[in-house]
């Protein structure tokens, strides 16, 4: 779960979920507390789906803006 996905791909991380900023991989301080926690929940929920998804090479997954 990171923001610099090009580096994650290059070092061979098989499953990559895009986050919103380098200093807060599991947050987004531009949101209010409740919205930020909701974003984090979508991110972790996505990550759980991703570890249950087969991949053969470094693959980037995006969290859908609405829902998961």
């Amino acid at each position, binding site marked *: 779960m990171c923001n610099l996905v090009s580096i994650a791909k290059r070092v061979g991380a098989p499953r990559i979920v895009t986050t919103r900023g380098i200093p807060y991989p599991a947050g987004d*301080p531009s949101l209010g507390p409740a919205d930020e926690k909701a974003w984090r929940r979508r991110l972790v929920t996505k990550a759980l789906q991703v570890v249950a998804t087969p991949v053969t090479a470094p693959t980037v997954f995006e969290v859908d803006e609405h829902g998961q």
Partner: protein
Amino acid sequence: MTTRIVHYLNQFFTGVGGEDSAGTGPARRDGPVGPGTRLAQLLGPEFEIVTTVYCGDDYATTTPTAVQEIMALIKEAQPDVVVAGPAFTSGRYGLACARVVAAAHEAGLTAIACMHTDNPGLDEAGAAPVVASGETGRTMKETLDNLAAAVAKVAAGEPLTRADDRVGKVPRLNRLDDRNSAERAVDLVLARLGGDRRATEVPLPKFDQVTPASPLEDPSKALVAILTEGALVPDDNPDGLESARATKWLRYPLEGMDSMPAGEYRSVHGGFSTVWANEDPNRILPLDVARQLESEGAIGQLHREYMTTAGNGTSVANARRFGVEWVGELRRLGVQAALLTAT
């Protein structure tokens, strides 16, 4: 006629500020600044650093239009040569330097970047040459000697080679050798038998091939760990995790906790502003929502502790060792999946 140089630096080496200024957008100054002053001296009167263009590291690497904006400032100064760095092992700065010289090269300008061979940004320089720097700013003097020699060479239109400390991808070069391939191959075999493990005519990329783990069948039945390289530790950093060039990883218990409380945990990472991490450590380690998902049954069980290190100028050898040790340890404890946040 003097050779006009535009020098790209980050906010730190321009003297604008540290991590608090990493979000600074692209801007310019007349003449050389910071390391550019020494570089200009080394290059002598045939060269002139006409403009220094700088940008904060976060802005440069996370704003989609950043390179375009930086290039606009560079082109305005009508350079003969674009020089970026030295970025040493700084990941974001290296990435920015690499993207700037790649864009300059694409635009038909002569461009060169300078960074350590372990810098994760190295490969994004594309076809533009990159000359080696030392690991940290402590090697500034030797690094600038190296860079000045390389700048003079590329400005003269000569190719930069491994002999000039070029690092990264080197485009294929055709030349006629007076010894045939069989003779050269035998020499390489003899060199290898003599203990030289580096001699080659075909350098291979160093990057790992990682075999992806099989997917989890069902996260709602799995034991899942949360990990970070964001250097999140108890507030007093009891085990002395390094803020850069980490030599170790650490683990701390999560039992009985449903959130990472501010004031009790903090990030000691030296590679980004930790203001947001310390305001709410769940931004680094998402324990609060992971616990919710566990209590709702979406995660079978959360592992009882988290693992942490600082991914900041960390050597590839150490990073690889941490990864191997983490996987070994997690497997031993029956963990089936790990979610790692990376800054």
